[in-house]
Each structure stands twice: as structure tokens, then as C-alpha cells.
């Protein structure tokens, strides 16, 4: 949590998020929180339930997009809204134990079609901080 944050950047037709965190795992969690904030218009999510997910990816940037689309699917397809996650990164993907709220479809207030590869960036700064930029198609 410490040193993590996100902001929304102006983008003509969609929503661009910039995220920063002290580690890549924390970065992924922060990006997921930002997506849920867009989806629910900043609703408060109770950390009352848990679930797990695994995914495969080809590189770090692909992993970020895949992760966000899985978080999106959990929300819109399963009604489970993420509030936090414990992530283990692998060479070809990740595993995550996700905390959040189930049966929470009624908290969803806006539509996100997908996290996209548009203008996608994920990098480690010389300071050690991780930064990323992702555009959500809304």
C-alpha cells in the first residue's frame, strides 16, 4: 500500500490510468484497484471474501493487461469485486489470492469493455519504483 497510487489521464474516448508502486506485484494490485474504482465509481469494497486465479502471459506488459481483464471478468461475469490481492509472479504469468466482495454486481456503475494494449507501458524507474500506463476501453 505505501508508495502506491494511481491517477487518471485525459484521453479522448476512453480512460487512461497511470499507476505507480514500490514493486511489480504492488503495481498490479494498484492497477486493479484503479479499474475497480472506474467500474464502481469509487465505491468502497468490503474485504469480506476470497478467491484465487492463475493466468498465463507472454511478457510483463501482456501480464498487466491479462490481469486487469481477469479482474474485470471477475467483476462483471462473477460479481466479485477486488479490494486487495496477494500476487506471485511467474516467468509466464501469475497466481493471485484475491480479497474482495462477492455478489456485488449492483455496485457496478459504469461499463468497461476491456483493458487494452493501447499506449501500454510498464517500467521500473532507476529509483526502483514501478510505473505503468494502461488504457481502458469504456
Amino acid at each position, binding site marked *: 500500500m505505501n508508495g502506491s497510487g494511481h491517477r487518471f489521464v*485525459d484521453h*479522448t*474516448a476512453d480512460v487512461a490510468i497511470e499507476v505507480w508502486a514500490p514493486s511489480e506485484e504492488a503495481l498490479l494490485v494498484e492497477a486493479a484497484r484503479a479499474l475497480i474504482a472506474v467500474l464502481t465509481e469509487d465505491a468502497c469494497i468490503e474485504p469480506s471474501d476470497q478467491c484465487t486465479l492463475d493466468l498465463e502471459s507472454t511478457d510483463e506488459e*501482456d501480464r498487466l493487461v491479462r490481469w486487469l*481483464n481477469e479482474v474485470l471478468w471477475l467483476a*462483471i461475469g462473477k460479481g466479485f469485486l477486488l479490494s486487495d490481492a496477494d500476487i506471485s509472479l511467474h516467468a509466464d504469468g501469475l497466481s493471485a489470492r484475491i480479497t474482495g466482495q462477492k455478489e456485488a454486481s449492483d455496485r457496478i456503475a*459504469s*461499463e468497461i*469493455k*476491456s483493458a487494452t494494449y493501447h499506449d501500454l507501458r510498464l517500467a521500473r524507474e532507476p529509483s526502483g519504483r514501478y510505473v505503468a500506463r494502461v488504457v481502458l476501453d469504456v
Partner: protein
Amino acid sequence: MGTNIKVQQVDEYRFRIPREGKMRVPGLVYATEKMMQDIRKDASLDQVANVAHLPGIVRHSLAMSDIHWGYGFPIGGVAAFDEHEGVLSPGGVGYDINCGVRLLRSNLPKSAIDGLLPELSKEMLRAIPSGVGSKSHRCLTDRELDEVMVQGSAWAVDAGYGRASDLEATEEGGRMRGADPDAVSERARERGLPQLGSLGSGNHFCELGWVAEVYDEPTASAFGLEQGQLTVMIHSGSRGFGYQICDDSLRTMMKASKHYGIELPDRQLCAAPLQSPEAQRYFGAMACAVNFAFANRQMMTQFVRDSLSRFLGEREVSLGLELVYDVCHNIAKWEEHEVDGKQRRLCVHRKGATRAFPAGHPELSARYRSVGQPVLVPGDMGRYSFVMVGTERAMKETWGSCCHGAGRRMSRKAALKVAGKRRIFEQLQSQGVWVRSMSKRTVAEEIPEAYKDVADVVEVIHQAGLARKVARLEPLAVVKG
């Protein structure tokens, strides 16, 4: 942000991007000099140039006058690829596969609903499932979804939504060939099952309007349109089903681009050779989404017909409410075009662009073959939309394509700021437009100021000779998602 791309003005409405670096063909943008100043503020021209890098692209990378920044391809982008050397790129179709629009005419004059707009607009909101994650009145079974994927509008008509005559007034007859349900993921199916027959959100809408002005009487008449008449427009696409198919395809296509050695200036331009199994699989899945969107708009057409009939206490047949046409904005299609005097089979990608075939084209149904294809260009919810007709010039220059709509000029964030505490609904009502929505925020993001003036977009297309103005429609009651 901005761009450093060089352009050369060809004439008042055409700008060329000369071939440079790894571009295989030049770019051609339809715009005025004034519009170009705005266009240069983001990276859309870079995107036009990027598309020109793709293998097998024929003649030029095109952008219509509603050009703006998209994913890989610009919105308003059109590109055709050789069947042997060329590629298929999901970014050239978009997430909302077969987002499109249809127009219904009616036998009613505008005066028939004088004083009824507040209640009528409420009734339309009730009748058409809309809003975030909107679910239809019915959830499809797996078997029905299989049929929808292959039969498109025809499934809907057979299921009691609409008339057989609607099919000949729909692009592709409402049913694109080549659909392959096996190419569609389980997740896409899960997203699609509850959503067929729903508007969705964002810039989707159902709009009751009227024909405010006719520019071309004979063509308007052939389309069944006359000044003062009530119309209905429905703008929607393939919902979560299509978005998922696009997302699924990008992963495959990124791997394929590497495998086939396709150099990508932008990851979202990922593609595979048209003859490859990857491209054929995406095409099969895309066609399923195309058909889903046709069936979606077809179902909502019947919801509108039922709703108006009930509200006005008149039988549907006396209201008319015939389908004028249904066009796709986001699609890739196999078409025959003349290139250097020879007929060639090309895969034409239209991403936020509309097919605009001329009179005489064999693809057009008998109803329009002597007139030309109706082209529908929706504007924002406050001002106007246009009906146009396709021309020979479009066939020669743009693979029979033209613009699709107004295009945003302001981000959602900026629109929310501008909308601020303004009483948007009341302001629009004072202009005679009743907007209903499940979300005030969506309406704020969709304020007229957030959009370019579609009249400017259409004027370029008209003056460039790609399509001719036929009529101007103005909104009366709008259901927004």
C-alpha cells in the same frame, strides 16, 4: 501530444501522407485545413501512417473526416488488403465488432407526438434494455446463441422480432457468411448469453427523431423518407460478446505477428496473413460477433415497434416503421474491387467507417440497386444526424467507404467538468430534446460539446464526392445507455 507526420494538401478536402520509412503505401486523409489543425493535436495521423506498414495493404491507408485516435487503426480508418499477400488485423475492426446503426422510417408526422415527448421518452427507456451491463428481456440458451452466431438477423426474425423484409434493408442481409462458433471462447459466450437485445452503454442510443430537411428528394423518396416525418435510429453493437472476441483475438494475433515475421509499429496492429489459420479463426469469430450485433439491433427494432404501437394505440402496420437500412461501422469484409483495371478480391477493414456502395452495385438488394446504398451518419444527441447515399467516386477512391459519425473531441473527464452542475436534461428539453438514461453520468459524458459537429464531417464527405447528402434528421427523444 501532437504529431510530426508530414502531410501534403491534395485539394480542399484531401491530404496525403507521403510514403516514408517503412510505410508500404501513402496515407490519404479526408478533412479540411481547419480540421487538420485539430487532427494534428493527437496521434491519429501517426496511426494512419502505422497502418501503411502492414503487409499486403493496397494503394493507401485511408482516414475519413471523423478521424480520431483509436487502437492501432485510427477511428475513421479504412484499409484494404490483398487476399494473398495481405493480413487481417483485429485492431482494424475494433472491440465493438459491428457497432453500427439502423434507421426506421414511419408514416407519422412530427405533429403526431406533440406534447407526448416526456411520457413517450419514458416509455422508450422502459421498453429498451439499456445502461451498464444491460441485460435483455430474455437470456439466450446455448443452442440459441449458436444459431444467432450463424444466422444473425434471420434468427431474430424467425424468433418473432421483426419482418423478413428487414433483412434486405440490412448490410450483408443481416447475416455474414463464414461464422465459426467453434472459434468463440467460453467467456465470450458467457458474456453474450444475457445481453442479446440490449443497448449497452456509452455512446449507444435509441433515438426518436424527425426528418428536418431533405437535400435530395428523389433519393429520399426512394429511401421512404420525407420532410417532417418521424424516424427512429438505433445505435449499438455486439456487446460483451464482441468485446471478448476482440480481446481473445489480440493474444493470438500478437503471437502470430511474431511467428509470421510481421513488424509492428504498434502492438495493437497485430495481424496474421489472411490465408493463415489464425486469421481464418479470427474471421470466423468476428463473423459470429457481426451476426450477434445484427440480431441485437433487430431485436431492439421490434421492442421499439411494439412500444410505439402500444403507446400511440395504433397498429404497427399503420405506423409503418419500416427499416430504411442498417450499416456496420466496425468490420472486416471480403469485397471485390477494381485495382488498376482488374477486379481483385480484397479484405477491407472499416474501423469507425461506413460502407457506401453506389447505384448498380450487385451487393445491394433490389430495393436500392437503382438508387445506391443508404449511409447513416449519427451525430451527438443534441444536434442532428445525416442520411447520405453511396457513390461511384467512393468505389474508386475509398473502397466504397465514408465516415461513420461525429467523433469525440473532448475526453470523458473534460466533458464531466464542462457538464459540471449544469442541468443538462433541462437544457436539452428547452431545445425540444428529451433524453432518458439509466445514468446521469453517461449523459454528462455524452453532452453535445464533447463531440465534433457531424455537419462538418459530412460536408467533407459530400464535397469530396464519396457520398451525397440526402436528409438531415433531428432528435426528439433519446434513450442513452
